[in-house]
């Protein structure tokens, strides 16, 4: 793994605008940045990212089974009690999952470490699956990259296959996002293209415009009944919305399914550590409530005391994350017992928290990349990299393309 400076494609900004990629520059800062790219060997991709991501996915599914069977864990993960059955039933019915993204810390050596799992509403799908792909093809055509270079990115094809496997031809799917957010919309539309290519009907509706019919079904902005709804809106919010009461009776298949509420939740991380302590791709993690006293010299909760004692460095070197947090909000880093970094956005500060061992991100040319490993179904099928100058990757981080050279 290395970072390589390379010429930008002439006119790529105009091309991006034409393709509708309007947030290629956000808030005056470059978001898509192709002045350099990350190079991987095939071995790094396959052995260090693809296979571990598929394995992590399996561990997460084991964790789901354990969490939905435990009232204690459902409580700790702040799943609203009236919806425990909805979440558990969606798991027991094997409600299908479409996609997800593991965020990994990886520097080209040693095992990639799971920072968190965006299991429910991962974005940057368009730039990962599509714009990055176009970059590789064009850079090969321009002679900047070699014809033998490749990219770990079959995300689009995997999504098409996934939709084709799950739904009969002609099935109507609705896609919803909150209005007015081009980044979210781009992810929803990339998903819609895949559904359409799979021979399905793809319809968009703003999430806020969804209505409820007399007989308790959800309907789109044009009053059409919604049979299947892909929603780019997190379950932790959905379950607290007024219409949540109608989820069970609406006869609507939701994508991602309700059981994703227990994995798109930082509470997953301590559960994984409890179940698979010492796994090479996991970082030690605990519920803050269990170890808060221990962090200031007291004792941890008895249930985790032994486990906590096996990671003596964690008390002074860790990251505190709220259960629900997007784009790095409300995260703080503790080093040598002191808070050395905290994200300015404290919007989630009031939520329950977890602590995770601090895994510094590698630094390449002044920037710290996070590897997004894309899952479709149960397979890892691509990588999207975001990097930031700061240690907490936030919504203004840059997206960097990558290629494989062997």
């Amino acid at each position, binding site marked *: 793994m290395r970072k390589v400076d390379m010429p930008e494609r002439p006119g790529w900004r105009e091309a991006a605008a034409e393709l509708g990629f309007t947030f290629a520059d956000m808030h005056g800062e470059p978001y898509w940045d192709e002045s350099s790219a990350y190079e991987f060997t095939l071995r790094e991709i396959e052995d260090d990212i693809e296979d571990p991501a598929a394995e992590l996915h399996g561990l997460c599914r084991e964790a789901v089974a354990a969490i939905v069977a435990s009232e204690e864990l459902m409580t700790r993960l702040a799943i609203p009690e009236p919806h425990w059955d909805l979440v558990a039933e969606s798991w027991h019915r094997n409600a299908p999952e479409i996609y997800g993204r593991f965020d990994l810390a990886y520097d080209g050596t040693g095992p990639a470490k799971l920072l968190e799992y965006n299991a429910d509403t991962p974005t940057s799908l368009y730039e990962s*699956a599509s714009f990055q792909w*176009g970059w590789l093809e064009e850079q090969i055509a321009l002679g900047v990259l070699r014809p033998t270079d490749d990219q770990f990115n079959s995300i689009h094809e995997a999504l098409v296959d996934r939709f084709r496997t799950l739904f009969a031809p002609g099935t109507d799917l609705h896609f919803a996002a*909150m209005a007015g957010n081009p*980044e979210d919309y781009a992810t929803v539309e990339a998903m819609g293209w895949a559904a359409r290519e799979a021979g399905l009907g793809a319809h968009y509706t703003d999430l806020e415009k969804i209505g409820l019919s007399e007989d308790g079904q959800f309907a789109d902005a044009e*009053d059409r009944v919604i049979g299947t709804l892909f929603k780019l809106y997190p379950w932790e*919010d*959905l379950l607290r*919305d007024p219409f949540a009461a109608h989820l069970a009776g609406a006869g609507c298949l939701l994508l991602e399914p309700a059981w994703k509420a227990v994995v798109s939740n930082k509470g997953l991380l301590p559960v994984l550590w409890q179940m698979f302590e010492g796994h090479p791709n996991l970082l030690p993690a605990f519920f803050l409530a269990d170890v808060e006293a221990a962090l200031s010299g007291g004792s941890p909760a008895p249930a985790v005391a032994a486990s906590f004692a096996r990671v003596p460095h964690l008390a002074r070197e860790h990251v505190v994350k709220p259960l629900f947090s*997007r784009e790095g909000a409300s995260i703080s880093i503790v080093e040598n017992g002191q808070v050395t970094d905290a994200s300015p956005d404290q919007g989630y500060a009031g939520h329950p928290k977890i602590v995770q061992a601090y895994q510094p991100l590698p630094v390449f040319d002044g920037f710290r990349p996070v590897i997004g490993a894309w899952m479709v179904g149960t397979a890892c099928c691509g990588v999207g990299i975001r990097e930031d100058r700061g240690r907490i990757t936030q919504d203004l981080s840059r997206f960097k393309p990558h290629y494989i050279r062997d």
Partner: protein
Amino acid sequence: MRKRSHRVALCIVGAAAFSLAGCREEEVDAQAFPDLASCQAAARVGSSAFSEADCDTAFAEAQQIHVESAPRYDALEVCEAEHGEGACGSEQQVTGGGTGSIFMPLLAGYLIGNMLGRGMPMAQPLYRSSDGRFTNATGATSYSGNSGRTQVGASQFERPPTTVGKPPMSKTTVTSRGGFGGSATGRSFGG
């Protein structure tokens, strides 16, 4: 083994994208005609890329797709809400078969296209939509008119799913809206 997609949809074109197909796909020269006669007339005066025989073949194909795949509704008013007043009839009236309790739009023209390497022209039926524009059978694509030349994506000529024998679309009665989105905690929901 290749680790990347062989092809992907490259563009995101704003809120209309779900009603537009054909993003950077193969483009096909196409022409729309309100009826068979106008197609034949254009062919005779040479103002069309298509011959009279093409007109006949394509019209027959569009009519067949129309019978099999036109949108079907459970009430005339639901159909007219989509396609405009006077633009619908019962399945019996429109196709000469079926029932009188299912309603579908009248054929309002057809799109004829030439794809390289395919001997015969391709065709799709066109329907009025309530906003004065025209749509294809699935309603997924909207056109500004039912005559004139255009270029459309090749997928526009894929065969739409059949609607014969399927439950017709009904208009649900919506009693409330806005029950989702209120708990939003951030301005972007991705991560």
